[in-house]
């Protein structure tokens, strides 16, 4: 079995590792299975909402637009809408059903949301990552709601014997204005279900000016009450009768293997029932488990204590020498030599030689761990050739596929129940923990919960890569930038899928490297080789973090060298309002979106810079020891600019009095959740900039918990974060929100530190660099 190389089975970003042109086969399959009225986006032209195409149709299983799949109405009028994406804090479990409710004229207080299990043939793609949910589902959800509305209207018109054009759904009932008659949705439910589903072409979508919910932000998330009372169910909260609790000791070095173990002491621990080996896969093997030794107990505490008492001998394997200090030196060396050219405009080499002045910056960002507040955890119940999973997974469909494959049973026999996720950040796109639970449940013949401890999470995850970005900017004698060479070197996520992958995948190149928006005549991007020695995975905003850090720091460095205002410098480099031409790039990726709907629009990029400068008081005078920094970055096809005000005291202690962020994410659903995502992105950005560092020695991660991998706490968090959302134009397609807030934060902070102190930090985390 090779789960790595069958392109038909590749999901999400993985497809971009292997497949150049994605066919629509998967969508057609969805059509067949869902029967009569499963339509795949892209979306057709509408007067009320201009046409735009998205990459949704190219995702595994595409989209399914069928009200019978997503909406049901009970006789008492309660409308149940399916949430088919994973909720990890973005609000998607509320916002997608809210779109349906909006279009169908349902009253939100009479709507219940039901979480879909993993079933992409039925619901369409469920990979909740890449900041895609609203972007891909705004229009399909509107169409589902509009279809349901028109079926309700048709049923009422029939009941009254009037033409359907005379009736109108309004706030949970259908009204015949001429006669004043009304019927509630509940009274119409049975008849509406008998109506045929209307063709998508004839659907009439609501005029946005009639929206009650969309774009308003007054609706709280559906789980709000349960979260505040402890009733909300995360993966860790699932309890089944007869369930066993397991923790696993995993090989400390990626690619390592179990040699031998002695369970005698572990078995003496009160509550421990069994100790057994768990199957592991050789590295790399996508998301398959690492293997190790499992301790089974009557509760998690006993399992952890039992694991502490295990005596294990490991074979560390080929990565046993991975050392972060030495590895950094190798990245620096690679970045100082020419690498694979991945974008070339003009002749940067010659222009750098003829430049009056060359400014060079090398920017380092270490590995980062996700440390979602809920560590990985899953419950599995395997009975014969059937398996049921309960887990906080970002990819319900992918989990179903991988579990089925691992157990050697048909996918149809695997049920994946998606719980709430206690944070995801990309970690829970990988379902290794669910596979572990399935393997153990099969072995033990009982339901099993596998709980990862925080140490497991920090030491055995899929880390954010480690990177060196080297930028050389050539200036002419007037200080104009005439050349830009950016070498980006980092182990690739592709190395988790295929042994020996050393170059960035197109989706990584497309995150802040080859999509550079600057108007510079001679621009070259290179990607030297880098070998991976641990599992590399997606981390919120992915390669955009190091790239934005490097590019936006360099802008401020050039401004300082030429004595210009950093914001003016930034606007000068962005240049004229235009759509950036990426024709010289082999695969511009563009977050999987068609360039026609989602071009790199420098007018929008400029606008967020100008907006944040205006609202955030760029240029205002600040107290001594304070400084302002600015950065902008387009990612996940959204445009975000941030200003950070920093304060550094005479001991070098850093605080952040104020953050201002402007975001243009096109047409949006819930501005209140956009604000919360951006507020959170500032915290995550500050965490990684100030503290974020995972290091290896002798192949092993040296950190384990929040003491040695600290994150920002309330006492260090910015005093205030302001968020400004650009009102969308009528034709602006929706774009990402969950991730793009992160990348501009660190460079804005670093530029602010420079403004405050004159110190230029090129190596993250800041750590103690400001002290002394």
């Amino acid at each position: 079995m090779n789960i790595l190389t069958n392109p038909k089975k590749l999901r999400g970003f993985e497809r971009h590792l292997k497949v150049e042109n994605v066919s629509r086969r998967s969508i057609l399959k969805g059509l067949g299975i869902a029967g009569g009225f499963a339509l795949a986006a892209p979306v057709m032209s509408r007067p009320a909402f201009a046409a735009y195409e998205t990459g949704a149709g190219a995702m595994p299983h595409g989209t399914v637009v069928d009200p019978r799949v997503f909406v049901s109405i009970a006789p008492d009028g309660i409308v149940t809408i399916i949430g088919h994406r994973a909720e990890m804090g973005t609000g998607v479990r509320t916002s997608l059903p809210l779109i349906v409710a909006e279009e169908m004229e349902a009253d939100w207080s009479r709507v219940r949301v039901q979480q879909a299990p993993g079933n992409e043939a039925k619901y369409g793609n469920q990979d909740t990552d890449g900041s895609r949910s609203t972007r891909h589902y705004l229009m399909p959800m509107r169409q589902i709601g509009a279809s349901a509305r028109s079926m309700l209207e048709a049923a009422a018109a029939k009941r009254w014997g009037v033409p359907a054009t005379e009736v109108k759904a309004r706030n949970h009932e259908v009204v015949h204005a001429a006669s004043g008659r009304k019927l509630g949705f509940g009274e119409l439910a049975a008849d509406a279900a008998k109506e045929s589903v209307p063709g998508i072409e004839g659907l009439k979508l609501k005029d946005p000016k009639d929206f009650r919910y969309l774009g308003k932000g007054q609706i709280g998330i559906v789980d709000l009450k349960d979260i505040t009372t402890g009733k909300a169910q995360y993966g860790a909260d699932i309890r089944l009768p007869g369930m066993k609790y397991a923790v696993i000791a995993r090989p400390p070095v990626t690619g390592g293997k179990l040699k031998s173990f002695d369970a005698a002491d572990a078995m003496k621990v009160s509550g421990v029932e069994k100790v057994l080996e768990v199957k592991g896969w050789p590295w790399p093997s996508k998301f398959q488990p690492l293997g190790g030794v499992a301790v089974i107990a009557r509760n998690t505490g006993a399992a952890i204590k039992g694991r502490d008492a295990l005596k294990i001998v490991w074979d560390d394997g080929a990565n046993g020498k991975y050392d972060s200090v030495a590895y950094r030196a190798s990245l620096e060396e690679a970045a100082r030599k020419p690498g694979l050219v991945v974008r070339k405009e003009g002749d940067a080499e010659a222009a750098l030689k003829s430049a009056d002045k060359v400014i060079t910056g090398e920017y380092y960002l270490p590995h980062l761990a996700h440390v979602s507040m809920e560590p990985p955890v899953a419950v599995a119940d395997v009975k014969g050739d059937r398996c049921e999973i309960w887990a906080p997974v970002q990819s319900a469909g992918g989990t179903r596929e991988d579990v089925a494959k691992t157990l050697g049973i048909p996918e149809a026999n695997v049920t994946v129940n998606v719980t709430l996720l206690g944070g995801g950040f990309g970690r829970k796109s990988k379902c290794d923990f669910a596979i572990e639970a399935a393997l153990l449940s099969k072995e033990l013949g009982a339901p099993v919960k596998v709980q990862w401890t925080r140490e497991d999470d920090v030491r055995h995850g899929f880390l954010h890569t480690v990177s060196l970005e080297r930028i050389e900017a050539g200036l002419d004698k007037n200080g104009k930038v005439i050349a830009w060479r950016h070498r980006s070197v980092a182990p690739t996520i592709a190395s988790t899928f295929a042994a020996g992958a050393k170059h960035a995948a197109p989706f990584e190149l497309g995150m802040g490297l080859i999509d550079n928006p600057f108007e510079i005549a001679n621009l070259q991007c290179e990607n030297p080789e880098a070998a991976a020695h641990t599992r590399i995975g997606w981390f919120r905003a992915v390669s955009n973090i190091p790239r934005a850090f490097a590019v936006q720091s360099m802008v401020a460095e050039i401004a300082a060298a030429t004595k210009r205002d950093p914001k003016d410098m930034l606007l000068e480099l962005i240049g004229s309002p235009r759509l950036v031409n990426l024709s010289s790039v082999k695969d511009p990726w563009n977050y999987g979106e068609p360039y026609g709907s989602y071009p790199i629009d420098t007018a929008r990029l400029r606008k967020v810079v100008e907006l944040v400068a205006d609202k955030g008081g760029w240029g205002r005078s600040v107290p001594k020891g304070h400084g302002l920094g600015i950065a902008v970055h387009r990612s996940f096809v959204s445009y975000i600019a941030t200003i950070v005000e920093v304060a550094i005291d005479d001991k070098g202690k850093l605080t952040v009095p104020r953050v201002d962020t402007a975001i243009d994410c096109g047409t949006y659903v819930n501005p209140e959740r956009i604000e919360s995502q951006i507020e959170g992105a500032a915290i995550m950005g500050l965490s990684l900039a100030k503290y974020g560092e995972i290091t290896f020695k002798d192949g092993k991660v040296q950190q384990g918990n929040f003491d040695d991998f600290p994150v920002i706490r309330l006492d260090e968090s910015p005093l205030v974060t302001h968020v400004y959302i650009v009102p969308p134009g009528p034709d602006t397609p929706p774009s990402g929100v969950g991730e793009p807030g992160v990348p501009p934060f660190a460079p804005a902070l670093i530029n602010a530190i420079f403004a405050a102190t004159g110190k230029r930090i090129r190596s993250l985390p800041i750590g103690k660099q400001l002290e002394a």
Partner: protein
Amino acid sequence: MIKVKINGQEQNWDGDPDLPLLWFLRDEVGLTGTKYGCGQALCGSCTVIIDKQAVRACITSVSDVVGRDVTTIEGLHPTGDHPVQKAWRQLNVPQCGYCQTGQIMQGAALLMDNPKPSHDQIREAMAGNICRCGAYQRIENAVRLASTGV
């Protein structure tokens, strides 16, 4: 056999007396509102209130709480309408929500001890509770709102 009182109800425990209260609550009693985040008193996800004090259940053993009243998020208020819970909902504090029960218990304990905390007191008292989603601005504002009346 150990007897402990959780949310006013007596619970028996015949297993390891050193078992961390966190796992006793979650796995043995079934009160899953108290969360695991670090196991080392570093994150506050497991915060419960014992004798009006915020306590980390992950480093407290079952035997430590014999004869004391343990309140978990499930017992904070019969209908979930403690002022801190209400303030949390009014300001839409949670993102993923996982840390929030611990945050709410910490906030409630703070207000028992200091009904009108200052800005700095809030930031300091809540600093033991990590929110990886970064909902801090709203956490701070919600504690303040709860202290001034919801």
